[in-house]
């Protein structure tokens, strides 16, 4: 059922967190109004809807805000019929949640650290950290894909695919900007193959931007930081 719901998503084109929510809504075939936020000039609506964190994404459903990308994705999954995003089995759900939390708690701060690093040493340190973390994901993927499935979620994309896949274009940007290869077919063959499949996925194609946009945004952030 994808009736006329009043759905508004406050997001940012280059935010992996916002992209996750767009993918989730896409999987469910639900239409929504998308509002691009200017993070240098946050809207009153954003500040009112997410007073605690003041961040995107925020999903406003019938006037009520839901914040935090993983919370929103689960909300969308539970509210709307259509292909399931989280698996049905409680143990598989726990596993998907574990790796999603790992991506957000360990992997994302590491690769963002490469971007934010102010010295070569710091950059190298963060790159090493990121590569170590991605290796752990590669090992986990080996266990999951052992049964020949295309995605973490099975034949179609699921929770962990959306969570990790939403970061891929930033990995491409980092390759271009910093020469760091986070995923490559040599060191992380399973993830490289999965990434190819993810990029070809229709839901991803709709909302994942190119690396160019990420590079542009990173330059914008750097300029703003330098101006301070």
């Amino acid at each position, binding site marked *: 059922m994808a009736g006329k719901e009043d759905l508004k998503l406050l997001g940012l084109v280059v935010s992996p967190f916002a992209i996750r929510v767009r993918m989730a809504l896409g999987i469910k075939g639900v239409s929504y109004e998308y509002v691009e936020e200017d993070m240098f000039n946050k809207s009153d609506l954003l500040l009112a809807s997410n007073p*605690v964190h003041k961040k995107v994404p925020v999903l406003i*459903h019938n006037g*009520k805000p*839901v*914040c*935090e990308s*993983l*919370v*929103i994705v*689960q*909300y969308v999954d*539970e*509210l709307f019929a259509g292909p399931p995003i989280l698996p049905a089995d*409680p*143990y598989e*759900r*726990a596993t998907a*949640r*574990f790796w999603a*939390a*790992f991506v957000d708690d360990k992997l994302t701060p590491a690769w963002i650290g490469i971007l934010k690093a102010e010295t070569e040493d710091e950059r190298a340190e963060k790159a090493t950290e990121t590569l170590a973390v991605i290796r*752990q994901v590669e090992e*986990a993927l080996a266990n999951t894909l052992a049964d020949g499935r295309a995605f973490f979620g099975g034949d179609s994309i699921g929770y962990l695919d959306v969570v990790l896949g939403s970061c891929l274009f930033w990995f491409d940007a980092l390759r271009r900007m910093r020469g760091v290869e986070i995923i490559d077919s040599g060191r992380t063959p399973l993830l490289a193959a999965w990434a190819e499949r993810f990029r070809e996925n229709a839901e991803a194609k709709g909302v994942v931007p190119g690396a160019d946009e990420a590079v542009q945004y990173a330059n914008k952030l750097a300029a703003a930081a330098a101006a301070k």
Partner: protein
Amino acid sequence: MAGEKKGLQLLDLWVSPFGQRCRIALAEKGLPYEYLEQDLGNKSELLLRSNPVHKKIPVLLHDGRPVCESLIIVQYIDEAFPGNAPALLPADPYARAQARFWADYVDKKLYDCGTRLWKLKGEAQQQARKEMLDILRTLDAALGDAKFFGGEAFGFADVALAPFTAWFLTYERHGEFSVEKECPRLAAWAKRCGERESVAKTLSSPEKVYEFVGVLKKRFGIE
């Protein structure tokens, strides 16, 4: 093979608020389990095998299969035993989202800030104190006049925060403030939680927590 025991086992540390979340959830559901106290200075084979990624407690083993990360464990307990009342997450998706948001907020903010509050001195400690007051006031406002974060019923967000009430005394002494004075609604909520058998039987006493932090400080060479 060792570790594939039937039923529930919890690898934990007595004072851990994260482990206590799991114990509270298990008690609320009336689920029997084997409690296995871990020595984090000399980690067991079972712990390292069950949580190779983080090597941390708590870990819940269900028929030998490990579930890691306290809030994930609590959700697993809720979902794997749907026949055991009470439901820790409400039925309504929006209420569920709110519960998850606040549990996530506690995870992101409280323990880390608390650690800085007792570890650091001078300017840095003052900053931590300021942040702690902000966090507690935010939680106080979110609770409002409700009985629990879940509304009428004790639920997921309450389980996430309840163990930290035993740490309030430690935060108060290091930050020189009173939760009762700064956040009366939160203080009242803490009392209500403490009246629940699951919480009362699980939490360490505030003085024991303070003593534990004192031992940690000595170990880190902090006065």
